[in-house]
Structure formats: C-alpha cells, structure tokens
C-alpha cells in the first residue's frame, strides 16, 4: 500500500493511503476528542469535536471523515479549535436536560468527561429544557431523549452491526430525535431483537438497561468493535 507523509502538529508522520486523519492522528498518540465516532461503525462527521485545521483550507475539517492526503499540514489543538470544541459541548449540554447528579451514567459519561476535559465549569448559554418524554415501554431497555446528543451511534450500531435498523433519526436540527420503527413505542417494535448493542454504543445516559439507578449503567462501547473484529476472522 502506498505510504503518505503528513505533518501533524509540526511533526512529520507517515500513513497508509485510505486512512482518515483521525486514524493517523490517534495512531501517532495524539488524543483527539471524538463523540459521534465509534470504532467499527461508519463515520458520521456529525458532532465536529474531532475537527482539525488543515493548511490551505479555510474551515476546520472533521478528522473522522477527512481522508489523509500527501503533504497535508494539520493542527489538532489550536486556540480556535479548543474554543470551538468547548462551545460545541456547552451547546450540547444546553440543548437537552443533562442532570448528571441523577443520571444512570454519572461518572462514566463521554459528554460529562469531555466537559471536564475542556474546562467547562458552567454553561454560558441558556438551557432549552425541552419537554421530552422517556420511553420505558421496552421490557429491558429505556430511552431518555433528554440525555441524547444525536450522535447516531445507536442508529449505526443497530443497522450495521445488528442488522435490525430499528432505530433512526427523525426531525430537524435540535428537535431531532431517535425514533423507533415508524415512530412506535420501543416496547411495540417488531424489528428490535433486544440485543442491547445500541445501549452499549451510546456515549451518554440516553439509552440504558432498566432498573439501573444513578451511575449504575455498565458501559462497554469496545464491545462493538470487538464483535466486528470477531466477525472479520470467523465469517470468511
């Protein structure tokens, strides 16, 4: 495979053709933040937390969907990028109802730890406090759209890993929501196999096993890439 040479944060690095910037950056030990990206799933480029600056391109680029190219000069942590990332997380917190103190995933949440990582000790925007009813109709799982960041990791997992495509996104912008089948209560879904993979892919407390209380959600997002890797080796 042809090798490429890029400059990342002033350092010369090499990569294989076909890799994304995110793969090259993380492969070189730089901990670039992501939220909608989950290893093994098709990249979505939705959350924009992974954005980097590429010399010659005016707008920041989402590293998870940008192919590495020969000679690229990439900056991963400029003051501008840090400011944007902080803004994105603050807007996510303001957009729904994040009450970490009573949340099933308190202490293990990707959104919560990103906020701390970016030094967010308060949110400068007004909270929208939308009224979003919880779906507790499924026998084993619950969904609280008030904690959803619309990353669509669950949608891609259900489609690409489980093959059920029970979940999808409906609506536009901040009013988007995860919908189940043709907007049914989860408990009435005819396609859901109750596999629980969506719950494991979810970075927040939006999807959870029922009967879990504050901080009790057990997270194993690495399950998804592990299942896919297992298939690679066993289904050929």
């Amino acid at each position, binding site marked *: 495979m042809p090798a490429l040479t890029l400059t990342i944060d002033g350092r010369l690095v090499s990569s294989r053709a076909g890799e994304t910037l995110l793969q090259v950056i993380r492969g070189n030990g730089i901990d670039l933040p992501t939220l909608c990206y989950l290893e093994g799933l098709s990249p979505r480029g939705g959350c924009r937390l992974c954005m980097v600056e590429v010399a010659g391109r005016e707008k920041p680029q989402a590293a998870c969907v940008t192919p590495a190219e020969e000679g690229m000069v990439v900056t991963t942590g400029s003051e501008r990028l840090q400011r944007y990332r902080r803004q994105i997380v603050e807007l996510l917190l303001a957009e729904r109802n994040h009450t*970490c*103190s009573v949340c099933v995933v308190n202490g293990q949440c990707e959104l*919560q730890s990103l906020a701390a990582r970016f*030094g967010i000790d308060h949110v400068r925007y007004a*909270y929208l406090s939308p*009224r979003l009813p919880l779906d507790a109709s499924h026998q084993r799982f619950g969904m609280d759209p*008030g904690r959803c960041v619309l990353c669509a990791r669950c949608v891609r997992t259900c489609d690409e890993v489980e093959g059920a495509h029970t979940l999808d996104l409906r609506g536009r912008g901040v009013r988007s929501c995860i919908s189940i089948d043709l907007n049914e209560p989860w408990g009435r879904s005819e396609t859901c196999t109750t596999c629980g993979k969506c719950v494991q892919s979810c970075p927040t407390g939006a999807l959870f096993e029922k009967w879990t209380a504050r901080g009790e959600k057990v997270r194993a997002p690495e399950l998804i890439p592990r299942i896919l890797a297992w298939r690679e080796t066993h289904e050929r």
Partner: protein
Amino acid sequence: MKGERTNRLRVATLWLSGCSGCHMSLLDTDEFLLKLAEAIDLVHSPLADAPKFPSGVDLVLIEGGVGTEHDLERALLARSRSRQVVSLGDCAITGNVPALRNPLDREAIIREVYGVAWQPERLPALLPAVLPLHRVIAVDLFIPGCPPEPERIRTVLTAIIRGEAPQLPQEMLSFG
C-alpha cells in the same frame, strides 16, 4: 473589639434552591475548618447566627439554583454587597435537581404537590424556571459537583485565602 479592622476575610454563604448538601460538603472539609476559622470571619450563613446579609463581604459561596422570587432577591443583594461570588455546586451552576421541573408546567406541579391546601401567600413565588446563578448575577468562580467534593471546596478556598487565583484541575471539574 467591635468594628475592629482585621485582615481576616469576611465570608458569607447563602442557601437558595438546593438541598443543603453543598453546605454539608463544606463542613466535611474536616481539619481544614480549623484553618478556615483562623483565616475568615463567617459573617452570614445558614451555619451562623447572623440573620442579615451585611455589607462589605469579601467572598460569598452560594448554594442552590434561583428558583423563587425570594432566591432572586437574595442573590441580587449578595452580589451587590460582595467582592467575589462563588457558585457552589451543580444546583447553583446548572439548576440541577430543582431545575428538573423546568420542562414541566409550573402550575400543574404546584397543584400536584400542594393540592387544594396550597396557600400562595405562604410560599415564595416560583419563577417560571429554575435558573443557574450566573444567569441572574455575575459569578466569579464555579465549584461543580453534586455535592462538590470537600477537596474541591478546600482547593478553591485555600487559594483564595492565600490571595492566589483558584484553578480547579480537570479531575475536579465534572458535574454530577
């Protein structure tokens, strides 16, 4: 002697719409309380017998969201009489638990909780939504957590007493 000028910090604490857990966390700073007692005068607090919010306060720690008109009045008064305001805990910073009512209808909640026995004149009027403190007054410092761990409070107060700018490390910043 009364009215004597000292170099001790004049500190107040305020309890708005919160559960008093943040105040408990302050008390949980153990032996640090002794150091604190040497360095500050607690001039107004639910923990002290001083009913009026005095003027010339150096630092006020405020627990709780701004949920009622009474909260709002007290927050404004505290701001106007204090040099530095600290949002202590998630309720003051985000609205947190009291703000769980924000997506719901205020009148319906009052009816649900107080039923027919509700006497509006006995309760401070609820604001339409529970607001973070920094949405109604300028806030200088934030100590997140529900409740904030004593270590976080100690870190901030230690810096202030030494006259340094407090900076909580990343691992002391999480909400929840």
